[in-house]
Every structure is written in C-alpha cells, then in structure tokens.
C-alpha cells in the first residue's frame, strides 16, 4: 500500500494531462470563433457584411474583442460581496468547461503500440455527470447576480436559475427514454452502439426534439435568454460586471453552446461515427491514426452544424415572455417527455417479448 503513490501509471497521467490541455484550449478557441461566426451569421441573415476590418473576412476580430475586454477597467461595486462577485464568473466558466471531460472526441490513437483513448474519462455514470455539472451551472448565475447587490441583477439571476431548473426536468426525462434503448450511461458505449446500428435520432426523434429545446434553455440562448432581457432588466445578471469578468460570462455561454452541441451530436447523431463508412474496415485499410483524425473531424462537423443551428434560431425567433417560457417548460415539454418515456418503455418491453403481448 505504501508504494501505491509511486506505482501510479505516470504515462497515463501525462497522456490525460495533455488531452485535457488540448481539449480545453480547443473549446476556448472554438468559443472565440463562435463569437465571430455569430456576428457573421447575423450579418448574412440581415443582409449586412458583418465584421470585416481585422484581418481577411474579419478573422482576427475575436482577438481584437478579447484584447478590448482585457484592457477595460475592472470595476467591483463598493457594496457588493467582493469574494462572491469574483467567484460568480469563475464558476460559470468552470462548469462550462467541466462537461468536456466525458465526451468521446474520437475513438483512439495508436502511438507505437500504446492505445491512447481520446476521451478524458469514460466513467460508469457517464451522462449523469453532464447532468450534475449542468445543475451546478446555476450557481455561476445566481452568485454573480446576488453578489452584485443590484435588484435588476438579482431578479435576472433568479429568473435564469428558475428557468434552468425547470428545463432540467424535461431534459432528464428525455434522457431516460434514450437510456432505456441504450441500456448504458457511458457515452463511449453509446457511440459504439450507434456505429453498428442506426443513429439514435431514428429511434428517439421526439426525445431529441425535447432535448434540443432544453439545451437552448440551459445555454440561456434566444428564445430563452430571459435572464439577459435588456429591455426588461437593463442587462441581466451581469450588469455590474466589466472587463474580463463580463467576458467570462459571455464566453461561458459560447463554451456551453459548443459542449451541448457535442453532447447532442454524441447522444443522437452517432458521435464520432463517420456516416456511410464502415469505420473498422477503414481503420484496418488506412491505419488507426488517420481513422481517429477523420472521426474527430466528423464529430466537429456535426458540432458545427448544431452551432449554426443555435445561431440561426437566435436571429430568427424572438424572445418568449416569462409566463410563456414557464408554460412551455412545465405544461408542454414535461408531459410530452413523460409520454415519450412511457411509449419507449412499452416498445422496449414489447421487443423483449418478441412483439407479443
């Protein structure tokens, strides 16, 4: 027992550390370019040009924005709770990043006979971990809004938190129907199952639809961005924030969008599975490393489509009123998800009895 600390597989730890660093920087870069893409998409939909000054096609615009945010003065309100005021944006960012730990980004690399899995942790509880981290995400908003010591921020924080809690329920119920089919919570296994069979979207279209709506609500995106409703609440829960603390809040929304797109692609659209290609025989013909690269690329394409969808919706659909939001969540989505769950359970049981009653 005494030598247990020394017998740790250091190569594994090194491998995981590198993977964590790569994935975190990747999600930050993706989030950076999401801000650029958002403005470009908005511009195209409104028949404008969008950012085009910094670099070709405005490709350096996110760097300029980031520099601007860093240079701004840090203001901490006098009557705020200083520690919690700083903790708020940090928590928002932390919870946004943590979910990426269990997403299988690709199958595995083969480096000189050593198999390097491209998933940071394939844990037994898999998808529940996502759920746990999402439910922690509320604290970033609530603590930030309360610590600002401002009635508008507090109201916005409470709005945001109650919205996230309400939509979490429907999200969980739509998970359950999916898990009945897969029989496992591990995301890695869910993806391998989809490689051999059809994607889960074919079996769970309604579940996916509910999940998609809830993902919009969890990310605080339009049409559910009630906590940032500027015409009702000035600027929402981050009204008192400035400089990079504000940047963290805005940025965490984009990281959330990236990660929830990844979760949706993994659960319902085959994850890193390359469509119309038999991955295993391709790997044998062209080498495992090339396959892993292409699979990662395939996942990123799916994620990009989802991110575009997020933006498309943002510039198309106006914001809900608060009572409409609550009615949609509690009176429509939850009953719908329950019906979906019962129907799925019924069909799964029927299939287990060879389609006889």
């Amino acid at each position, binding site marked *: 027992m*005494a030598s247990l600390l020394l017998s*740790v597989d250091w190569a594994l730890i090194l491998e995981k550390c590198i993977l964590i660093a790569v994935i975190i920087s990747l999600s930050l870069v993706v989030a950076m370019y999401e801000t650029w893409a958002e403005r470009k998409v908005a511009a195209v939909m409104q028949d404008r040009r969008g950012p085009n000054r910094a670099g070709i096609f405005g490709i350096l615009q996110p760097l300029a924005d980031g520099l601007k945010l860093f240079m701004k003065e840090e203001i901490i309100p006098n009557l705020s709770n200083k520690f919690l005021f700083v903790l708020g944006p940090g928590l928002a960012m932390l919870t946004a990043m943590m979910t990426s730990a269990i997403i299988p980004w690709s199958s595995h690399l083969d480096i000189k006979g050593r198999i390097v899995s491209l998933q940071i942790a394939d844990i*037994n509880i898999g998808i529940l971990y996502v759920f746990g981290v999402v439910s922690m995400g509320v604290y970033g908003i609530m603590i930030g809004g*309360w610590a600002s010591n401002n009635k508008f921020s507090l109201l916005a*924080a409470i709005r945001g938190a*109650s919205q996230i*809690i309400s939509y979490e329920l429907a999200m969980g119920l739509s998970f359950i129907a999916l898990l009945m089919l897969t029989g496992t*919570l591990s995301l890695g296994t869910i993806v391998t199952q989809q490689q051999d069979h059809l994607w889960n979207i074919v079996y769970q279209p309604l579940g996916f639809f509910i999940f998609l709506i809830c993902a919009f609500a969890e990310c605080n995106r339009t049409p559910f961005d009630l906590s940032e409703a500027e015409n009702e609440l000035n600027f929402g829960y981050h009204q008192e924030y400035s400089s990079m603390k504000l940047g963290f809040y805005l940025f965490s929304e984009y990281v959330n969008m990236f990660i929830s797109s990844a979760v949706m692609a993994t659960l319902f659209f085959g994850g890193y599975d390359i469509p119309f290609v038999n991955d295993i025989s391709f790997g044998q013909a062209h080498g495992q490393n090339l396959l892993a690269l292409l699979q990662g690329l395939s996942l990123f394409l799916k994620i990009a489509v989802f991110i575009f969808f997020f933006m498309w919706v943002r510039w198309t659909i106006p914001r809900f009123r608060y009572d409409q939001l609550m009615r949609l969540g509690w009176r429509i989505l939850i009953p719908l998800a329950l019906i979906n769950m019962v129907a799925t359970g019924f069909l799964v049981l029927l299939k287990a009895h060879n389609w006889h009653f």
Partner: protein
Amino acid sequence: MSTTQILFWFLSVLAIFSAIMVVASKNPIHSVLWLIAVFFAISGHYILLNAQFLAIVNLIVYAGAIMVLFLFVIMLMNMNADTEPQKNKWLKIAGVIAGGSLLLVFVAALKNADLKNQLAQVNHGDIGLISNLGMELFHNYVVPFEISSVLFLSAMVGAVVIGKKE
C-alpha cells in the same frame, strides 16, 4: 500513506471544516455555500467507495436542486444582521444541552458498534455502480422503493395544491 488515504483525510477535513462553517458564518448565503461544499466532500467519499451513482445523485439532487431553492428563499428574504431577531438565552442553553445529548448518543452508539468487521470497501466495491444498484432496488427492494415513490408523489401533489390556493 496511500493515495486513497490522503484523499480520505483531505475530504474528511474539508467536510468537517465546511460543516462547522455552515453553523459559524454570519451571512446565511455563506452558510448555504459552505453546505454545498459539504455535499461535494461527501460525494467525494462516495466516489472513494466506488459508489459513483450515489455520488452524482447526491450532487444533482442536494447541491444542484435543493440548495438552489434554499438560495432562492434566502436571497429574496433580504436578511440583514440588525433585523435578525436575537435568540433567548434559555433557548441557547436548551440547544447546547440537546446537542450535547445527541453527541453522547452518537459516541455511545459508536462505542458499541462492531467496527473491526464492518470496514468499508474502499476502491473496489461495485454495489454502488448503477446497474448493480438498479438490480438491487428493482428486484429485492421493489416494494419499499415503490412505496417511497408514492410518498414523493403525494408530496408533489400537496405542493401543487398549496401553490394553487389563492
């Protein structure tokens, strides 16, 4: 010391310190946040026992939902130090006596407990994994499980009825 032991002591100290801070901090919001830290430490203990499902459910239900509702209530009540009613001296003495008696009962119970043969399976038990737990709950304990869910349902209906009352 092995890694598991180091983690155990770290989590235990964290849990006890945070629990003391829940009681000791003046600001109720800080109390709630320390309580969340306690839940995290306890979940860490569950993970050490390889009870991953319990750990995550503890976080989702207690830290993620119930504590948020606590925060809601406290944030909206606008508690200040000067508006807080001062407690009666006798109430404090009664509290100390009651707490001390509880401690005495705990110590007595621990003294008689058979600790040698009941060591927790650290790191290699698998009863806490979700499939084993599900099998156990839905095969051996299905009736108590269903009864408790009916209890939850009745509590939910009660909450809706109270909420509907104008």
